[in-house]
């Protein structure tokens, strides 16, 4: 069973909202017309969530993290390869922490 009740509740909640997103667009498309503004707002959400998640580490943790972030972005942009970009980030941060703390 789940390692604790809280964990089970969160996983179940994640499952419910995820299925709702999967089913709702399909269900609604023939009934409701999504306005341009709402569509732009919804389109922006995944990106802004990611920015909010990384911003404190990228901008405020220290130079090692900031420089490694730059290396990750450049690698991901050039290679379009997520595992590669991840490895580059880990190696860069590991090396930089040894030299600049």
């Amino acid at each position, binding site marked *: 069973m789940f390692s604790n009740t809280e964990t089970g509740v969160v996983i179940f909640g994640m499952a419910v909202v995820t299925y*709702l997103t999967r089913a709702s667009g399909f269900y609604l498309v023939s009934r409701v017309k999504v306005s341009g503004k709402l569509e732009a*707002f919804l389109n922006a959400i995944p990106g802004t969530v990611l920015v909010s998640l990384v911003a404190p580490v990228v901008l405020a943790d220290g130079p090692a993290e900031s420089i490694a972030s730059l290396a*990750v972005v450049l690698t*991901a942009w050039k290679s379009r390869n997520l595992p590669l970009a991840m490895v580059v980030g880990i190696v860069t941060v590991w090396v930089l922490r040894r030299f600049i703390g």
Partner: protein
Amino acid sequence: MLKTTSLLHIICNSSRISYTKGMERDFEFSPKGLADGFIKSWPIAVGVFTYGLVFGLLSSDAGLSLFDAVAMCVIVFAGAAQLIAMGIWIHPLPIWTIIFTTLAINLRYVLEGAALEPHFRGLKKWQSYLTLFFMNDESWALSLSRFKRGAKDKAFMLGSGLAVLVAWTSSTVVGQIWLAGVADSSKWGLDFALTAVFLSMLVSMWRGKSDIAPCIVAGIVAVAAERLLPGTWYILLGALAGACTTLFGRRKKHV
């Protein structure tokens, strides 16, 4: 991950197709189509497998048991959202933040489902809504490209979804068992893995100039809120503040 511009493009095109095709029964939902989808999805399954290894490692670091991680893979089955949840999986769990973040990250499924609908007209309800449970970016893109070229057997997508679920779950098990506990994660820079994954996702989602303002505002608000407020409110505040920039200012250009 697919760019949203291409999503919208496909939505527009797919609804056009559906209106011209008319009433004739040009679809089926057979076991053969399901098997076909499962087998033809091996390249995307290999790609998903790599992500699953990462999820296995990170979920173990976050303190999830093997059961927790596998249950999450099978009933949530949303790679990006699961990876992101691991970044805020700190006890006591910020329940609403995790659920809101999951919802926000998965909003793209609303668009993907909307794009699929015209191709599934005529199917039984259970066939559609069962397939939707297994809808993921990769299977959706692969299947839709076939449906648009006239493929009749809609069970292809269910087969593809199952293949991705199997790859995702099995690689999580491998990651949890073999990769976890390799070393102290911050000593080896592994604590940076998640930030790197998120940054890569951000790059792959980047649509162009229209993303600049939302992202700058999200970043500033998130850093400020992280300093000033307890817990993980910075994620919600940053995300909503950034997205709100789309409601103001100049008329948007194309997308």
